[in-house]
């Protein structure tokens, strides 16, 4: 429980490497001292609050907004998702516009009766469209999440 708590704080805490090392060492001492005096790990954790609360309030004392990198990550991933979506839609649109009739071979003008089984069960352009839609949904989720965190 203690190891898990310290590990979680290590993940959440956004400080310089030396400051972080210091905080984690102290956190370990907090646990060891309390256990020495007959407290349980559970009691210590209740006093410390969640790893996130502990990390945020500690970082605040160092004058650092602990949520900054999370915000940045949110913004970067939304932008990437939007770019992926745009590229996917453009590819889909161009693929659709010079679409050869189904079942045509070598872009012949006329239809043939030879059926060509694609490498995939369904059309590649459909896959690209699906990728685009997923990217848009992901981008929206990321944007909502990032702005909601900002407001808090």
């Amino acid at each position, binding site marked *: 429980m203690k190891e898990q708590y310290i590990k979680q704080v290590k993940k959440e805490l956004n400080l310089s490497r030396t400051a972080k090392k210091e*905080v984690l060492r102290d956190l370990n001492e907090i646990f060891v001292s309390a256990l020495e005096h007959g407290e349980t790990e559970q009691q210590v954790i209740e006093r410390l609050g969640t790893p996130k609360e502990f990390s945020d309030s500690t970082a605040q004392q160092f004058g650092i907004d602990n949520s900054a990198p999370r915000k940045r990550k949110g913004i970067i991933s939304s932008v990437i998702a939007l770019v992926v979506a745009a590229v996917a839609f453009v590819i889909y649109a161009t693929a659709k516009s010079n679409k050869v009739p189904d079942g045509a071979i070598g872009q012949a003008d006329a239809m043939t009766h030879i059926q060509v089984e694609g490498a995939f069960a369904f059309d590649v352009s459909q896959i690209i469209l699906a990728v685009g839609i997923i990217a848009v949904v992901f981008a929206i989720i990321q944007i909502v999440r990032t702005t909601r965190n900002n407001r808090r």
Partner: protein
Amino acid sequence: MDNKYVQQFKKGSLEMILLSLIGRKETYGYEIITELNNSASVLGYAKEGTIYPILYRLQEAELIQCRLAPAAANGGSKKYYSLTPKGKEVLQELIMFWASYTDCVNGFIATYQQMEVSE
């Protein structure tokens, strides 16, 4: 009593209390916490989450210093805090200020109480 005015008092004086505590003798985290909880119940329950951040700040301001000493239990280490010369100076100033500050506040309280009695 735990309203926001009381909170403000506590917040403002905790640094001075910690400096006095550490100035008395070299001490470590858990000892500070238990000391506060045993003899300063009016301040409310002291938590590591409140105390350590202040210790970091005091250390950064070079008012306190610390040394690591190996602890008996499971090969860990304990951090012992003490005042720096600068910390002693600042504490002296704070003590002096606190004296005139309480005098001033008490003065206002006294005039208010006198008025209340004469009414």
